[in-house]
C-alpha cells in the first residue's frame, strides 16, 4: 500500500533535526532505518505530515568503547552490531540479540536506537538493553539528557521522549571481569518477532558468586519487563542449577503474557522459565571464561 503524502526533510546536524522537531512537534516523525515506521505508514497506522530523515546526519554511526561505556550511535544498524568484532568478542548478549532481530535484509537498515524508540514489547533490543542496564542519550532544545532504559520505556509504543527530542546514542556500561550474557528467543520462523525471549547479563565475583544480574523479558507483557525478583534471587549466590531454577521460576512469575497466534499465555510463561534457565546457564559459563 502507498503511504499518505508527507513533506520530507533531511537535516545535516542534530541541532538542525531538533529545530525541525521543535517546529513541527507532533506533526513530525523521525525516520532512521524505516523498518518499523515505513510498514506502519504503508498501513496508514502512522501518517506523519513531516518526515525528518536523520540518515544523512554525519557522525551518528559510531560504535566504540569510551569512558566506561559501549557507545552506540543512533545510526548503528542491527547488522553493524551483528558483524562487529568488538561486539562478538566482548558483548555476547548483544551479539546473540543482533543475530535474531528480524532478517538479514531488515538488519541492514534497522537501527538499535530506532528499535528502542519504537518501544514494541516484542522488540529484541529493549529486552537486551534492560538486561545490560543501558542508558539512552537524548538531544533536545535544551541540550542532552540521559535516561535509564527502565524510565525510557514507558508503555506499549511509548517512550519518555518529548516530540522535540531525538535519541543520539545508546550506552551500555562496559562489563567488568567475569561477566557474561545471552539472549534466548523462540520464534515461529526465522525473521519473526519473538513468541517469547529472555535477555540475561551477569557478573560474578572472585569466589564465583553472582555480583550483578540483569534479566529482560521480551514479548510477554504490554512492555519490555524487568524480572527484578529473579535478579535479586541471583545476587550473592553461586550460579548453580538450584539458583538458576529458582530465578527462572521467578522470571516466569514476572511475565504478563497474553494468548495470541504465537501461543497461549500459559505456554509463553513456561517458555520464559525455560529460556531463563538456558540463558543463565550460558551466561554463567561465559562469565567463568571471561
Amino acid at each position, binding site marked *: 500500500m502507498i503511504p499518505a503524502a508527507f513533506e520530507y526533510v533531511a537535516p545535516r546536524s542534530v541541532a538542525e533535526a531538533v529545530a525541525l522537531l521543535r517546529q513541527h512537534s507532533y506533526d513530525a516523525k523521525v*525516520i532512521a532505518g524505516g523498518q518499523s515506521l515505513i510498514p506502519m505508514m504503508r498501513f496508514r497506522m502512522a501518517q506523519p505530515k513531516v518526515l525528518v*530523515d536523520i540518515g544523512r546526519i554525519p557522525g551518528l554511526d559510531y560504535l566504540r568503547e569510551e569512558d566506561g561505556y559501549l557507545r552506540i550511535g543512533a545510526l548503528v544498524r542491527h*547488522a553493524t552490531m551483528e558483524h562487529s568484532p568488538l561486539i562478538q568478542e566482548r558483548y555476547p548478549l548483544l551479539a546473540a540479540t543482533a543475530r535474531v532481530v528480524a*532478517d538479514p535484509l*531488515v538488519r541492514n*537498515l534497522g537501527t538499535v536506537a530506532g528499535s528502542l524508540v519504537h518501544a514494541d514489547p516484542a522488540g529484541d533490543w529493549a529486552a537486551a538493553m534492560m538486561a545490560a542496564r543501558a542508558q539512552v542519550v537524548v538531544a533536545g532544545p535544551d541540550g542532552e539528557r540521559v535516561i535509564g532504559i527502565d524510565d525510557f520505556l514507558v508503555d506499549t509504543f511509548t517512550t519518555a521522549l518529548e516530540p522535540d527530542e531525538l535519541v543520539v546514542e545508546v550506552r551500555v556500561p562496559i562489563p567488568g571481569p567475569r561477566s557474561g550474557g545471552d539472549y534466548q528467543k523462540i520464534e515461529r520462523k526465522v525473521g519473526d518477532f519473538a513468541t517469547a525471549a529472555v535477555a540475561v547479563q551477569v557478573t560474578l565475583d572472585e569466589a564465583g558468586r553472582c555480583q550483578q544480574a540483569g534479566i529482560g523479558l521480551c514479548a510477554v507483557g504490554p512492555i519490555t519487563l524487568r524480572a527484578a525478583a529473579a535478579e535479586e534471587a541471583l545476587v550473592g549466590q553461586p550460579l548453580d542449577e538450584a539458583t538458576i531454577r529458582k530465578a527462572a521460576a521467578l522470571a516466569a512469575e514476572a511475565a504478563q503474557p497474553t494468548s495470541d497466534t504465537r501461543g497461549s499465555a500459559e505456554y509463553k510463561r513456561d517458555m520464559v522459565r525455560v529460556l531463563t534457565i538456558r540463558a543463565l546457564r550460558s551466561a554463567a559459563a561465559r562469565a567463568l571464561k571471561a
Partner: protein
Amino acid sequence: MGHRIAVTINGQRYEAEVEPRLLLVHFIREVAGLTGTHIGCDTTSCGACTVILNGKPIKSCTMFAVQADGSEIRTVEGLAQNGEFHPIQKAFWECHGLQCGYCTPGMLMAGVALLERNPNPTEDEVRRAISGNLCRCTGYQNIVKSILRAAEMMRGGAGVASGSPVGRGSPAQ
C-alpha cells in the same frame, strides 16, 4: 512537493523529480523502468524486492526513493555482463534454483551480496543469508545448492560451467 533525486542503478545515473512517498521499488520499476525487481507483499516480509544498496542487500519496498538519493543500487538487470550470465545466474540455471521465478531476482541479489562478502560460505551461512527471502515453490533446497555452486564458480573452482549466453533457452536435461 517534488524532490529532485539522482541515483545510480547498475552503473547508470537516473535523475527524477519524485514525491517523497514514492517507495524505492516503485522508482526502480516505474521511473527507471527496471521491472526485474519484484513486489511480492505489502508487509516487508518476502524479499522479492531485494536490491543491493551501497553494497548491502535491502528490501527496496521499505525505503523511500528520497532516502536513496545519491546512492549506488544494483538490481538483477545488472548481473549479466556483456551478454554473459553472472555465475550466480548460471548456477541457478544449472541447479534448478527456480520454479516460477517470482522470488528469483531477490534470491540472486541476496546471494550475490553474500558471496561478495564471503566467497566461501557454509550451507548454514547461505541459509541465513537468504532467510529474509521467501520462496513458495522450491522448498529452498535447490536455491541453497545454486548459491553454493555459484560460490564454487566464482572462486574459479573445478567444474566451472562454460559460458551460458543470455537469452538462450534452458539447457536440455
